[in-house]
């Protein structure tokens, strides 16, 4: 809400410095979004009267002016303009002046003649025709005779003003107006509010002879007030009103339009003026539009309406979109002679939906959307008529049309003083509360511990004790709130098990040199294509946003891999040689598409690596660490994830289910993501990891007898997985086989092509006795025999 300090001064005396005013308003809940001091725009530019005009002795196109600038001797200025004349009032930029376009003016000589400043054009003062009549005329701005030589141009132009932009919270639509802000200013400064008291003369007649008003849909229009004005005398508004409108960023047009705009800014209640000529049948009908009903608004746009929209129609067709914009043909023009004036309350969500649906936003719709005061509807009409009378803009016809289904009385709330103090934790005296509430126009009396508050209709945000407490508090001052310690027994707060598990995984991964990343939960549907997922892949059954910011943020992800690959790609393309990343986040798994209820939000973990030192096994090592941290020894099986290298990927199987998949990124996938190096990626089901955890460790006795170690060097087919060899060793090794360690794998010139050499260290130990070589040999022979059956022979 942009507030001109000069305008505000019409309603309340401001005797404190600007800074103090702003500070007090902030304390009362009105943040200051900006302060614009209009006087900063120019400096040392004054009104001058041209006393004498002579030709420059050495230049045909230059004139030498003697000017009265209201101080001492005349000032000599040289100008090149040809529209000046003796006796004219003109703006003079004196020596050492500054113009709004950034120019600095100093005295100097033009063709040898001294010039102590510059005469200014409208353009040089950054003025438009709306700001000052004649501002866009070519040449020097000729001022009107209503100003004195020597007057600062800022006061001539109304620039001796400050515009404060107050931020008004959504619960205070009453403060979307000059009077609303003035009321608050009066309270915080302890001054009284001068609310205009409308009074005007009527010129006979009867409104009912001119028009009839029917409200068909009171649910969308609870109150509709209409008046008629005859013998309209369209003219310019007075300068004071134009300045007010300009300060609020509105363009003055003519007295009638300006009055409706002025009262809207003053009271917050929008008005609409109809040219009575164009109200067909002398009827105003407030009704829902018909489905598909056409209408052309005054901006020339054609709309198709629907039944949810409210229109002000005449006997034949809609002439106004209620509260939003008038129709093309009902506009006030220079030849308007009779006027129907409307002041009404339209339901805010109706205005909001209609405005959104049609893509129109006006000063009027913005105010109706926030909500107007049903009692302010009448006051605003009265105030507009007062101004019409004052400006002699027309003859007011006797009689008022006021359609409503009963006006609300001020609501009465009973609130206990101790209740308010109890909520705040303070001990504010009851008398102080009464004083504050009354100053806010909430008529309040005290009896015992009870405050009886009459809440005015413009404060329908005040519903009960908490609201009254807030009103008292924001004026009493929040600085009175002093921090206290809550009572009650406290135990340390708990953290959910899922979070504790996540914490453990994070610290484990951090200790492995991984950095955590955070990415958006929504992805592009193209990301699923880039992964190469099949058309019927489950992960394509995803929740989609109905109104995404764009395609790239439109799908709630069902996997973390594509986000991780994008991040790897970003880093790779920034020439970062290696990364180790992880992300712990949610994936969203719907039970049906489109969704009918909230999807499952499943915690997942992604790991991504690339760089010189990374390979399948560095990733596998990390995956093993994670599962081992949860006491799980999973099986690793070949998997067939489409985005991974077919020969370099594995599923981590826990209790028969894949709890993770990892491997080297398929070169095609890597290429689609723009990663031109080998990258490695894992995705882990956090939920499975957490539920499969072996929580309690049970002690096993330490070995009492020595161990026997045996090394086995074997040669087998290169394609035989070591896990199979280990399986054979373990199943044939007997109960005393304590551990198996693979310590060497070799393929190369020493070995037959297509074969590999693997070397194991086997440790045997008995819990009951010291093992003898014979005991061990028996099992070793069995192991070797079984291995031979698999084509796995001792290396000679």
């Amino acid at each position, binding site marked *: 809400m942009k507030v001109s300090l000069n305008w505000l001064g019409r309603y309340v005396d401001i005797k404190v410095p600007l800074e103090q005013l702003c500070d007090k308003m*902030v*304390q009362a*809940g009105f943040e200051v979004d900006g302060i614009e001091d209009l006087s900063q725009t120019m400096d040392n530019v004054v009104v001058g009267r041209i006393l004498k005009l002579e030709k420059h002795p050495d230049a045909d196109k230059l004139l030498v002016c003697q000017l009265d600038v209201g101080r001492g001797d005349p000032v000599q200025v040289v100008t090149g303009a040809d529209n000046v004349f003796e006796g004219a009032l003109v703006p003079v930029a004196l020596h050492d002046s500054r113009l709004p376009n950034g120019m600095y003016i100093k005295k100097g000589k033009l063709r040898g003649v001294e010039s102590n400043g510059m005469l200014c054009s409208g353009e040089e003062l950054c003025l438009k025709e709306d700001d000052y009549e004649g501002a866009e005329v070519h040449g020097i701005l000729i001022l009107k005779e209503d100003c004195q030589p020597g007057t600062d141009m800022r006061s001539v132009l109304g620039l001796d003003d400050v515009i404060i932009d107050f931020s008004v*919270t*959504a*619960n205070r639509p009453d403060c979307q107006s000059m009077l609303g802000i003035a009321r608050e200013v009066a309270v915080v400064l302890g001054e009284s509010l001068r609310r205009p008291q409308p009074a005007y003369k009527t010129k006979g007649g009867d409104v009912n002879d001119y028009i009839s008003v029917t409200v068909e849909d009171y649910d969308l229009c609870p109150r509709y007030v209409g008046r008629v004005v005859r013998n309209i005398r369209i003219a310019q508004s007075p300068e004071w009103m134009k300045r007010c409108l300009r300060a609020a960023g509105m363009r003055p047009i003519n007295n009638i339009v300006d009055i409706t705009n002025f009262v809207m800014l003053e009271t917050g209640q929008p008005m609409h003026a109809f040219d009575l000529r164009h109200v067909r049948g002398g009827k105003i009908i407030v009704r829902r539009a018909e489905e598909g009903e056409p209408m052309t608004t005054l901006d020339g746009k054609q709309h198709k309406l629907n039944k949810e929209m409210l229109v002000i129609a005449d006997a034949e067709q809609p002439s106004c979109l209620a509260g939003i914009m008038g129709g093309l043909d009902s506009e006030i023009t220079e030849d308007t002679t009779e006027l129907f004036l409307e002041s009404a309350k339209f339901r*805010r*969500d109706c205005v*909001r939906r209609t405005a*959104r649906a049609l893509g129109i936003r006006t000063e009027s719709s913005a105010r109706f959307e926030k909500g107007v005061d049903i009692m302010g509807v009448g006051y605003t009409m009265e105030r507009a008529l007062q101004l019409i009378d004052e400006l002699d803009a027309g003859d007011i016809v006797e009689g008022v049309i006021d359609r409503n289904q009963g006006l609300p009385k001020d609501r009465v709330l009973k609130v206990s003083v101790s209740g308010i103090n*109890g*909520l705040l*934790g*303070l001990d504010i005296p009851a008398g102080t509360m009464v004083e504050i509430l009354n100053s806010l126009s909430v008529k309040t009396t005290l009896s015992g511990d009870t405050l009886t508050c009459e809440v005015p209709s413009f404060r329908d945000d005040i519903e009960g004790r*908490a*609201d009254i*407490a*807030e009103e008292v*508090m924001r004026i009493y001052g*929040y600085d009175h*709130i*002093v*921090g*206290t*310690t*809550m*009572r*009650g027994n*406290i135990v*340390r*707060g*708990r*953290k959910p098990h899922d*979070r504790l598990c996540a914490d453990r995984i994070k610290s484990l991964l*951090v*200790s492995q040199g*991984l*950095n*955590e990343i*955070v*990415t*958006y939960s*929504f992805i592009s549907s193209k990301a699923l294509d880039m992964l190469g997922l099949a058309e019927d892949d489950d992960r394509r059954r995803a929740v989609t946003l*109905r*109104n995404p*910011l764009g395609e790239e*943020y439109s799908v*709630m992800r069902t996997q973390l891999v594509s986000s991780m690959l994008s991040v790897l790609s*970003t*880093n790779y393309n920034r020439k*970062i040689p290696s*990364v*180790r*990343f992880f992300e712990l986040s*949610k994936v*969203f798994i719907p039970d049906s598409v*489109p*969704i009918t209820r*909230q999807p499952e*939000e499943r915690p997942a973990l992604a790991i991504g690596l690339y760089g010189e030192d990374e390979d399948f096994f560095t990733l596998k090592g990390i995956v093993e660490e994670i599962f081992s941290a949860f006491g799980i020894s999973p099986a690793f099986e070949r998997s067939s994830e489409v985005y991974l290298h077919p020969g370099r990927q594995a599923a981590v199987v826990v209790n028969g289910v894949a709890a993770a998949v990892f491997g080297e990124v398929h070169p095609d996938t890597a290429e689609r993501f723009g990663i031109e190096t080998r990258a490695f990626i894992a995705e882990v089901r956090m939920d499975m990891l957490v539920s499969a955890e072996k929580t309690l460790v049970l002690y096993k006795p330490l070995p009492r007898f020595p161990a026997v170690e045996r090394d086995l060097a074997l040669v087998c087919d290169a394609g035989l997985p070591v896990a199979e060899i280990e399986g054979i060793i373990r199943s044939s090794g007997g109960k005393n086989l304590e551990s198996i360690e693979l310590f060497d794998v070799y393929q190369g010139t020493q070995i037959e092509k297509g074969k590999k050499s693997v070397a194991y260290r086997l440790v045997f130990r008995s819990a009951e006795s010291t093992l003898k070589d014979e005991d061990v040999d028996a099992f070793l022979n069995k192991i070797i025999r079984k291995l031979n059956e698999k084509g796995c022979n001792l290396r000679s």
Partner: protein
Amino acid sequence: MKEKLEQLRSQVLESLDKLSDKKELDELRVRVMGKKGQLTELLRGMGALPPEERPKAGQLVNSLRVELEAKFDEIEARMEEQLKNSRLAEETLDITMPGKRRKLGGLHPLNSVLEELIDIFRPMGFDVVDGPEIETEYYIFEALNVPKDHPARDEQDTFYLTDDILLRTQTSAAQIRVMEHLKPPIRIISPGRVYRADEVDATHSPVFHQVEGLVGDKGITMCDLKGVLEQFAHEMYGPETKVRFRPSFFPFTEPSVEVDVSCGECGGKGCRVCKGSGWIEILGAGMVHPNVLSVCGIDPEEYSGFAFGIGLDRLTTTRHKISDIRLLFENDRRFLEQFSR
């Protein structure tokens, strides 16, 4: 005999003085004291003495043996000490060389700040509670006292999935879910990811993070709210930090306040960071609206409570002086590594 012993003694002592290393010492020891050594020879030669002289001579030989043994041991010990010292001297390292370490990774700054925050609130008795990111209109708006025609429900601010299901715009929905299941006393914080239809720029992101706080009990006051937030501010920003309330509006709290802390950069005098005001806005808070309590079946006449919502992303960017919120979601290693610990 005596002369021979004396001669051997001076000869050995002389040799001992000339020894240069332990090898020579060992050789000399064998030459003198060994089985075929000079002293042993002398002892054997004792047989040639008359029996009455033998004890005396034996005594002399033995005392010389003891003396020489001690001498040998002493020199040996000295040699070993020297040897050790010179080895230690040789082993001197350039201790300014870098340590051998496994490089650690690190948490994302959003989450390390979140952990700090959790560590501040848990000892004050706040449980950590999680809620769903995909919510229904009821929990996001209706139960939180946001009426049907409120602009906050507009499509242009909120991501909708269906008419009724949407991406949560704040973590306050957690308040309702908690109060539906728990009755006072309640103390929780609920951190999480939230969504708003803001175009991406240096200070906006359609995905961001909040931490909701909620306390409900008999006799909870606005002063208690300030007490908790002061504790938070002191631990997060330092013990000198001041907390200020400014009136504001949220549908689900009444009274509602914006909460500022004194600017840590200038100590409240006003600087570029706080745009001259001396204060930095950190969160919104208020007393839980009676309608919200009622909706959850908690009697607002009997109980009161307060709630607050902290913007984690802004807290993180101001704390670490990160100039652009987009850096948080870009995940450049060089950025993330700055937060490795």
